[in-house]
C-alpha cells in the first residue's frame, strides 16, 4: 500500500500539504506519532510546541530530509516518498543549521546553490539577493567570519534564489535582529501572496503576528488541543 493511501486523492491534489498518520522513530524513540495535517495553498501555519515535541521532525519529513517510519503524505499532490525529488523541486527549508560552507564567500555559497539547482550562476541575481538580505557589502567575505545572524540571512538568501511553493521555516526568528525579523516576515508575506503554503515552527508566533492563519500545537509527537 502506498504511504499516502487511505486519503482522498481529491484532497491530496488540492492541498499544498496533506499528511495522514505520519510518524517517525529515531532508534527506540518516537519523535512523531501519527500526525495528520492539511495546509492549503496560500495558508500560513504556525507550528508550536515545547522542545522535543516533533516540530523539526515534521518539517524535515515534509522537506524529504527524512522518510516517515509510518504513514505518509503529499506536497502539492506529490508523494513524499515515491516522488521525493519532485517534492524537493517545490520545497524550501530554512533549518536550525544554516547549511553553508564556511570557507566559501557569501556569493560563492549562493553560486553553488544556483548550480546545484541546475541554473546558471548569474552574478547579477546573486548580488541582488545579497543586497535584499542586507549582505550586499559582504559578497566577497568568507562565511567563517559571519555572525550567526548573518549566516541565517545568507541561508534565507538561498531560498530567495528559488522561491519555493512550500516554505518550511524552523525557528526562523532565532538569531535575527529586528531587521532580520522584518525580512523573514516580508518573505512569508510575499510567498503567501504568491499562493505558496508556509509552515513556521516557532516558539515566538507573536513575531509573525498578522501573517499566521492557523496555529497547530504539537505535544510529545502528537497534535495537541
Amino acid at each position: 500500500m502506498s504511504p499516502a493511501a487511505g486519503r482522498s486523492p481529491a484532497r491530496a491534489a488540492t492541498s499544498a500539504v496533506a499528511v495522514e498518520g505520519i510518524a517517525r522513530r529515531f532508534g527506540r524513540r518516537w519523535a512523531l506519532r501519527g500526525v495528520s495535517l492539511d495546509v492549503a495553498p496560500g495558508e500560513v501555519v504556525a507550528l508550536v510546541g515545547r522542545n522535543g515535541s516533533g516540530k523539526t521532525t515534521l518539517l524535515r519529513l515534509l522537506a524529504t530530509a527524512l522518510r516517515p517510519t509510518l504513514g505518509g503524505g503529499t506536497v502539492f499532490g506529490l508523494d513524499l516518498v515515491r516522488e521525493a525529488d519532485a517534492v524537493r523541486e517545490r520545497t524550501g527549508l530554512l533549518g536550525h543549521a544554516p547549511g553553508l560552507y564556511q570557507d566559501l564567500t557569501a556569493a560563492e555559497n549562493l553560486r553553488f546553490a544556483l548550480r546545484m539547482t541546475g541554473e546558471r550562476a548569474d552574478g547579477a541575481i546573486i548580488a541582488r539577493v545579497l543586497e535584499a538580505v542586507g549582505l550586499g557589502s559582504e559578497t566577497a567575505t568568507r562565511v567563517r567570519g559571519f555572525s550567526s545572524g548573518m549566516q541565517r540571512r545568507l541561508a534565507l538568501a538561498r531560498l530567495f534564489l528559488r522561491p519555493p511553493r512550500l516554505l518550511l521555516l524552523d525557528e526562523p526568528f532565532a538569531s535575527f535582529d529586528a531587521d532580520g525579523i522584518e525580512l523573514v516576515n516580508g518573505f512569508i508575506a510575499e510567498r503567501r501572496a504568491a499562493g505558496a503554503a508556509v509552515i513556521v515552527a516557532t516558539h515566538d508566533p507573536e513575531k509573525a503576528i498578522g501573517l499566521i492563519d492557523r496555529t497547530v500545537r504539537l505535544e510529545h509527537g502528537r497534535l495537541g488541543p
Partner: protein
Amino acid sequence: MTTLRRELARAGAVAWKDLTTERRTKATFNSVVFLAALTLLLFGFALGPDAEALRGAAAGVLWLTVLFSGVLAFNQSYQLELEGGAFETLLLYPGDRRAIFVGKLAANLVFVLLVLLLIVPMAAILFNLPLLRPFPGLAGVFALGTFGFVTLGTFYAAMASRVRAREVLLPLLLFPMLVPLLVGAVAATRALLAGDVMGDAGSWMRLLGAYDLIFFVASLLAFEYIVED
C-alpha cells in the same frame, strides 16, 4: 539542458566547492602529504639499509602509504559537509543524488593524484626506484589503482559520515574491500619496476580495470540509499 548535462554540471559544482575549500584551507592536503612522507620514511627505517630489500618492498610500501594517507582525505571530505548542517542542505537540492557522489569522487581523485605527484618521486629517491623507463605503464597502474581506491573511499566515507566514530569506522569498512585492489596494484607496480620481463603487468592492470568498473557502478547505484536518513 539535458538531464545528463545538468547532472554533470551539478557534479562539477560539488567538485568545485570541495576543491576550492581545500585550496583555501590546505588543512587536509598538508596533513596528508606530511603523513605520507612520514610513512615512507618509517618504512624505509624499518626495512633497513639493504638497497635490494628496499627496492623489493617499494611497491607495497608505496601503495600502503597511499591507502593510509588517503583515508584522512576521505574523512575530511565529508567533515566539510557536516559542519553547519551542509550535508542535509546538499541532499535537499532537487536532482539525482548520484551527482553528489560523482562530484565528491572527482574532487577526491584530484586530491589523491596531487598527493601521488609528490610522494612517488619521494619514494623513488628513498627507495632508489627507476621511474622513467616504466613511466607510461606506472602512470596507468596509478590511475587505475587510485580510481578504485577513491571510488570505494568516497562511498564508504559517505556511509560512515553520520557515525560518531567515523575516523575509526572508515578504515575498518574500507581496507578489507581494498585487498584485491592492493594485491593487483602492488603486483603490477612491482612487475613494471622490475622491467616486466614476464609480461604480467597487463593482466594485473586488467584486474584493476574490472575492479574499478564493478565498484564504480555498485557505488553509484547504492549511494542514494546510504545517504538516506
